[in-house]
């Protein structure tokens, strides 16, 4: 562990080109996919929380099923769609960061929808009723609701980001872990461990944890400032 920790520090200090590329691709993929999932999932979750009757129940069950979608299955679906025989082959997304982002969005969006729906369900009634009583238009009411749930939205984003940065199954299938192109922290850890370089794998794991920690601390401070 000590050796791995020292190697992690050495790796960062050396500004190793391959490591910097891996960190850059990891951040790019995780931030883009979690943001896209947030932009898609929050409005869908909000709409679902306001729905009524059997259609809502059906959609909730479908979403909960998708929340449990195994990453490798998601990766396989994307692989088939983007491969040379797939219907989306012309987009040339296989073994690209864009393809990895799409796979991640497919994985994270149901989680964002589920989180948002669970949080908003019942809570929005008071906000909506008050805003309606004031004669505010539907668009204004929606924005007000989002503003009231800003803390939860940030938490949901962090949740999505954590899933994206830690995911390995779908990104390795769609991205292929190509050095200097689609290799991310998780696929690199897997690759080096398989090659017998456990220490380097552990060092990368420590760096990955540190990245998540820095982001969480930053967002926590931001939330505290916004919540004042």
């Amino acid at each position, binding site marked *: 562990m000590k050796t791995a920790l020292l190697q992690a520090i050495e790796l960062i200090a050396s500004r190793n080109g391959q490591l910097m590329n891996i960190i850059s691709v990891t951040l790019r993929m995780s931030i883009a996919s979690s943001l896209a999932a947030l932009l898609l999932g929050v409005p869908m979750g909000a709409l679902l929380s306001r729905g009524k009757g059997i259609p809502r129940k059906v959609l909730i069950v479908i979403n909960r099923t998708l929340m449990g979608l195994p990453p490798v299955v998601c990766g396989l679906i994307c692989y088939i769609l983007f491969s040379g025989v797939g219907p989306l082959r012309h987009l040339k997304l296989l073994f690209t960061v864009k393809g990895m982002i799409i796979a991640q969005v497919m994985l994270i969006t149901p989680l964002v929808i589920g989180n948002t729906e669970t949080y908003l369900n019942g809570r929005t009634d008071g*906000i909506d*009723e*008050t805003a309606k*009583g004031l*004669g505010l238009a539907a668009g204004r009411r929606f924005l*007000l609701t989002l503003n*009231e749930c800003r803390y939860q939205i940030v938490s949901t984003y962090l949740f999505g980001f954590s899933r994206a940065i830690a995911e390995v199954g779908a990104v390795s299938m769609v991205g292929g872990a190509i050095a200097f192109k689609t290799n991310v922290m998780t696929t690199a850890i897997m690759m080096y461990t398989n090659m017998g370089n456990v220490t380097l794998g552990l060092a990368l794991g420590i760096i990955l944890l540190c990245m998540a920690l820095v982001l969480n601390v930053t967002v926590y401070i931001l939330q505290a400032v916004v919540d004042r």
Partner: protein
Amino acid sequence: MKIDPIRKTYQSRTVLDTCSMEIEQGRIYAVAGANGSGKSTLLRCLAGIEKPDVPFSVTGAEQLSMGYLPQSSYPFKMSLLKNVLVGLPRSGENVSRAKDLIEAFDLGELSSSRADRLSGGEKQKTALMRILMRRFGLLLLDEPTSAMDPRGVLTAEELITSHAKETGCTVMMVTHFMKQAERIADEIIFLSSGRTDGPVELSRFLSGQAGDAAREYLEFWGA
């Protein structure tokens, strides 16, 4: 204006079944009755929050705008002043009016404090100020002073009365307190098991001439 009969049923239980009601513009109506008598449901149906069994209409008033203050109004996670101004342009006139209302309730020191962190009574004052910032044809207030201290109650009543006079709006206000009804209302709409005979003059109601259920309700107040 005339409000059509309103009927509302929850799982085969009729909670509201009113007759057609004649409402005079610019007057203040107290809405009274025991718990579960349908007071809030009446206001919620009128405000469009609750869907009645059959659609109803309000005739005699062109494009009637309705403002509704729920029993537990939501304090937005922003300052007291911003809450009072929510959804309104930040014009000098609006800001000045908001500050006047805040001062009337003696909450000037708290105007930059987060409204969701105020006490129950202060939150209720905020909610009342927020609705009094706007002009409506019909203002529906569901127990707007239930958590306020006595001084706050009197201030709220003064503000509601002066708002009704200034804007010419009709006010329907749910209250459990007959003294409050006497101070503020012109007429009373008494509900018993979801039914009402419509508005009656307060003096007639208080002298026990508005039916057995109303007399029984008043006896309790006299006890």
